[in-house]
């Protein structure tokens, strides 16, 4: 129990730090446009700044008031192995996001589901999607409209932490709350 609180605090702090710097958050990247190329063209990059600004704005908006008395709201919740069930310690976090979204129907959020690296990649896409859907259902139950929530699953493709231990894996089994505006 205590370790989870520690993790929460750490993540809150780190998110705040990043938000303050308005720099690219660890697992966000690139723009929607033109991120791929065909055989003969060179490498691509994307207008990452536009999206980051938006995300930063979203973060700032949240940081300004959505956190409630405990502090800023966590952007990541974690899951047990092979499970999509929201752990009891994160129910309040989900509720906090639900409140923020329910209060303003124009705010849109994307839930990004992830898994640890073990097992097959496409099956992990399914597990990541299950987790994102689990959080989505919880939000919808708490008054958030469908149009506000989208989901994406990255499976094991975008780990937050490298490493092959349970400690690293536990930090990768997660859903991230990404505010789009």
């Amino acid at each position: 129990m205590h370790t989870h609180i520690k993790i929460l605090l750490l993540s809150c702090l780190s998110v705040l730090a990043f938000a303050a710097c308005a720099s690219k958050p660890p697992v966000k990247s690139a723009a929607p446009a033109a991120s791929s190329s065909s055989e003969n063209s060179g490498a691509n990059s994307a207008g990452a700044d536009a999206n980051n600004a938006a995300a930063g704005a979203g973060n700032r908006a949240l940081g300004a008031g959505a956190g409630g008395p405990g502090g800023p709201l966590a952007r990541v919740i974690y899951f047990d192995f092979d499970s999509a069930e929201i752990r009891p310690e994160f129910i309040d976090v989900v509720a906090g996001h639900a409140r923020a979204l329910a209060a303003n129907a124009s705010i849109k959020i994307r839930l990004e589901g992830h898994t640890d690296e073990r097992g097959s990649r496409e099956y992990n896409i399914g597990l990541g999607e299950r987790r994102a859907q689990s959080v989505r259902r919880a939000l919808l139950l708490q008054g958030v409209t469908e149009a506000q929530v989208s989901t994406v699953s990255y499976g094991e493709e975008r780990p937050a932490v490298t490493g092959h231990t349970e400690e690293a894996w536990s930090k990768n089994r997660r859903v991230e709350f990404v505010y789009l505006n």
Partner: protein
Amino acid sequence: MQFKNALQLFGLVSLLGLAPASRAELQIDITQGVTDPIPIAIVPFSRAVPADGGLDVAEVVRHDLDGSGRFRSMAIASMLSQPTRADDVQIADWRAAGNDYVLVGRVTATADGQLSVVAELVNALTGQRLGNTQLVATAVNLRNAAHQVSDFVFQKLIGARGAFATRIAYVSVTGNIGAQRYSLIVADADGENPKVILDSDQPIMSPAWSADGQWLAYVSFENRISSIFVQRLRTGERRQVSARVGVNGAPAWSPDGQRLALVLSGTGGNLDIYVLNLATQTLQRFTDNPAIDTEPVWSTDGSVLYFTSDRSGGPQIYRASLAAPERVERLTFGSSYNARARLSPDGKQLAFVTRVGSDYRIAVQDLASGDMRVLSHGSLDESPSFAPNGMSVIYSARQGEQGVLATVSVDGLVTQRLKSSQAEVREPVWGPFTP
């Protein structure tokens, strides 16, 4: 009276004489052999310098055959002579040096600027000529011609078509977390000649070869969601074929190249398998189940799909025909986790990822008997893919902190690590024979 005596005498004598003479002709029954590598001398070919672009054909052959684990080539330094013609091979010398076979050859420039490659195989035990191969190549594809020489030797002595002249595709990732770059690469089967065909800062997944080796399908997150593309290798032309709401994943070409089996989740978030007709863009639903159904694989005749489903709790391999998709048959048992099946070219075996204790390993299962054999020994082995001759499986493994590619023979006896690079490599898929 005398006759009887005589008969008795004869009888007694015969008793003496017959007893040892009843032994049958000497026969030895051999029920096993060894899997030792065949000792072969691959003599440096005569070169066509500078037309050959600096490529040592015999060296490529040596690397192919040694790497297969089924041959052991003689060190050049130990060769007393370097004949280039079978006529010049004195088998007694080569045999005395411990070789069973000798390969000699010549690369010569032709009048029209091409290169002629001739190789001859000689049995050092008997002096018999096992045949020769003759190829014409350009400087650009001379390496491929060398691989074809390896195929020729392999076919003669192992009795199976060599896969040295085929290609693989894989995903390569560089950079640290948060600044990673993803590339889709096509290379020779030995890892040489890598060519980047797609470069992205978003994940690329699940490359899949078309049966004719002309196209790759894959999943790209370039649009912030997963979407499926097909790309023609020779031209680089690419098309987005599925970007539906939710998950788009696990594309698999039908044997006739007309359809893609793929995975969609729709808005509900539940993964199911569909079949997309590429020309008409019509979708046919294959699974309709609250479980995760993914990773479809076509049978060789295109009538059946094998897939992963966790409808019984954990992921297992199932199959069903396209004509009756509701009649689902479970194929894997014994482990609580079996996923990511791939079918052998002859359709008789499945390779997949199985969990053994807490390790994830590659297993091969015979479809007729259900016999399963675990081939690999790592803890995070995944993404198996059969060679087009069905004799080995390429997969990704971890080597320390790095993701590497490895091959293992289907009998589990020969393993090989591919040429390693700085990058983390994953998701290898073995291309087909190109006729």
